[in-house]
């Protein structure tokens, strides 16, 4: 029956490896899907098959319908179920300790939660102003000034979004034209590529490599040209924990000014900067007028599910961000914005304690990973650490993660899914330490017991 052959099967929808479908795919009657059991590449792991949701396995059998199903948009090649969800689901199934997905298993501070509760009780439950509750915009301006020394206009230069994820989507859709060239540093957070493809951008990539993931300056100089529309910088960097140094930012800045390039920065981990000070690109001379600085509440306040983020940019760039934001989500959760006002007024001691807590957690994990036999790369910021898994003799990162879940009972994230070219990440996996100490120790114990070097 035509329909069962034409539905996007689970493997295609869930694989982190890109299937390059023929661009002549126009209607399902012409579509000849790859057979599920044959592997497109030797790297296609059984893990992905086992991770496919029960639901989509039923797709083919359900709905006996006369018409062939109608086409979904071509852009969906980039929109598969994320690796994080897949790993989390398997972790639950196997009772594995989850050091994969980057959200805490402890909760946010009471004073912020209380503020949200109060806002709900006070009736702040209706649409907020599209670009943000005024008091929240002001609080962000205040915090930004403290962090960078920059004065920004909360009314004209700040936009509140549903998490930094939406800030990124709105920035791409509002400021990038189809065909524009945008530069990313790999490995990169998975929504960058997806939203850039939604905007029709041409993606160029520079890979950051171990051991220190330094920016390759020569490659950078030859890659940024007058044709480059924008460059995206995530610092502190997920997944490597690298923090862009002042020298690196200076080089990037001068190339951007010279070639009239925009900069989009994702700084959600800025308060988890351990080994050096976090530097915002916008604060470098000449850079504010070409930079969109994005951030969020979730990581700093352990409230990743509240979806409160923001974009700071000069008015002419903010306008584009706001246009896209207005049809993406229209407005951001009102009570949480009010709570965020309280959060951003947290005293310095809050941030100091945050860093202390995370430093302790990091120590447990890093010590443990070293003892187990991983090659651990230094992570200056974020709550992630990447390691080289090859001492354990598995073929690649995905195979290693599969083995780690099934045989050891611990979850990590394969780094190749963060790279345009999976080869660049195949030796690396990412662990997170945004978990309580008991969880971290349990994970380390399991690995010490069951993970043997080859």
């Amino acid at each position: 029956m035509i329909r069962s052959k034409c539905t996007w099967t689970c493997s295609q929808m869930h694989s982190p490896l890109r299937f390059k479908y023929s661009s002549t795919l126009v209607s399902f009657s012409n579509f000849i899907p790859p057979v599920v059991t044959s592997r497109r590449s030797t790297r296609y792991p059984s893990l992905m098959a086992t991770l496919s949701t029960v639901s989509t396995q039923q797709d083919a059998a359900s709905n006996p319908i006369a018409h062939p199903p109608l086409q979904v948009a071509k852009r969906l090649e980039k929109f598969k179920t994320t690796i994080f969800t897949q790993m989390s689901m398997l972790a639950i199934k196997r009772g594995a300790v989850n050091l994969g997905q980057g959200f805490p298993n402890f909760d946010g501070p009471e004073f912020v939660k209380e503020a949200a509760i109060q806002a709900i009780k006070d009736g702040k439950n209706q649409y907020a102003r599209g670009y943000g509750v005024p008091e929240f915009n002001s609080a962000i301006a205040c915090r930004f000034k403290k962090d960078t020394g920059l004065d920004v206009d909360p009314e004209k230069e700040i936009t509140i979004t549903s998490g930094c994820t939406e800030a990124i989507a709105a920035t791409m859709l509002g400021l990038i034209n189809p065909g524009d060239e945008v530069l990313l540093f790999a490995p990169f957070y998975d929504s960058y590529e997806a939203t850039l493809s939604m905007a029709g951008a041409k993606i160029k990539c520079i890979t950051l490599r171990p051991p220190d993931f330094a920016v390759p300056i020569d490659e950078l100089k030859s890659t940024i040209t007058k044709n480059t529309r924008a460059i995206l910088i995530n610092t502190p960097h997920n997944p490597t924990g690298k923090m862009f140094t002042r020298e690196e930012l200076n080089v990037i800045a001068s190339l951007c000014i010279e070639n009239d390039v925009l900069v989009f920065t994702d700084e959600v981990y800025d308060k988890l900067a351990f080994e050096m000070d976090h530097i915002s690109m916008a604060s470098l001379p000449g850079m504010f007028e070409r930079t969109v600085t994005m951030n969020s509440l979730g990581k700093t306040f352990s409230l990743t599910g509240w979806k409160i983020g923001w974009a700071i940019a000069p008015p002419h760039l903010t306008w584009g961000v706001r246009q896209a934001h207005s049809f993406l989500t229209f407005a951001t959760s009102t009570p949480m914005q009010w709570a965020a006002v309280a959060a951003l007024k947290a005293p310095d001691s809050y941030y100091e304690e945050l860093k202390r807590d995370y430093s302790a957690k990091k120590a447990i994990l890093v010590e443990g990973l070293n003892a187990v036999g991983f090659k651990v790369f230094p992570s200056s910021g974020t709550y992630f650490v990447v390691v080289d898994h090859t001492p354990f003799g598995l073929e690649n990162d995905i195979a290693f993660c599969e083995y780690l879940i099934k045989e050891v009972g611990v979850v990590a994230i394969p780094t190749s899914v963060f790279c345009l070219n999976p080869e660049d990440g195949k030796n690396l996996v990412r662990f997170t330490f945004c978990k309580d100490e008991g969880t971290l120790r349990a994970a380390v114990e399991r690995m010490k017991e069951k993970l043997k070097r080859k």
Partner: protein
Amino acid sequence: MQRIRPVTSNIVEKGMEKLSSVAKAFTPSPIQELSHLARRCNAINLAEGFPDFPAPPHIKNAAVSAINSDFNQYRHVQGICDQLAKLVKEIYSLHVDPLTDIAICCGQTEAFAAAVFAIIDRGDEVVLFDPSFETYEASITIAGGVPVYVALDPPNWTLNEDKFMKSISSRTKAIVLNSPHNPTGKVFSRDELEIIAGACCTRDCLAITDEVYEHIIFDQEKHISLASLPGMQERTIITSSLSKTFSVTGWRVGWAIAPAFIASAIRNIHVKITDSAPAPFQEAALTALTSPSEYFESLRRDYEFKRDYMVKLIAGMGFRIRFKPQGSFFLFAELPENCLLSDVEYVQELIKQAGVVAVPGCGFFHTNLSLEKSSQVGYQKRYIRFAFCKSNATLSAAAQNLGKLLGASGCLMLN
């Protein structure tokens, strides 16, 4: 550290070039702008579509409880899907699989945007009815789609089958249906839905519905979900949300219900746009969606009372109300016959002289109509939308303010 910011118009102009061509085409929301003016003048806001009365206590309590119980990290609450599946079965006789057919999003807005990105490719045409809510077009355009507007015929905003069928081409990918309808308050009849369904099936199109006002219907009207018509479930994406039903427009919890492969695509896109809807409000949604039938009954009753009040009030001002809203919380009223002002001018006077704000209808009409000449659509500047999702106190305050402006004829005297 002083920021060096040469503020020259040159920079701004160059900056404007940096905007995507689509973003440049957009103008700021007229509805939001009027709200700003109203706020500045301290006017009674009958413009924006959100309640000024509190959300139901049982739902607020559920949210508070969720925050206290640490439901504050990224999550997907499957229970919402289970409950929605139950509801659509009970109310619309639709059988959906809660595991595969539902995507939870940040409001109906995001569900709609994700649905559009899921199915619209460059050059695809999307048929919409005119007048229409302003936001649909934006996501269609950004996705590379081409909006094609079909005018509903005043005064009753009826669907003209001939006009409608003529606007469908070989490039038509989808039809957007908002019912109950913003701004007119129309509830599409079964006959009209059958026309739309017929077109979708024979011309092999998809449908995206916006059913956010599904529970706000009057006079024993029934809201029929397009997806429940024969042949439609497999080609319809339903979008809706908690916002209007539960008076929590600021919580941003909505959903899309669609055939599994489309719902899956929507879910995947949603994850890249926002990652998840606010977690504690997802929990509260469970409580909301299991509200007893009395809740929905009293919602209807209360809004029907407000509708009647508003109709009487506005008619008393000399407006022509040839079509009483059948659903939603909007009254789309035609300016008094002898009134020479345009809708925008009238609203401005209303703000300045009566301290009441409403929305000029021109914001909902489109000039790029399929098949109409501009000479035939003079009515586009003759309508004003009044929202009655306001407390009775607000409504009577508005009545008082407006009452002061009534002239001897009983009609509103505006200079």
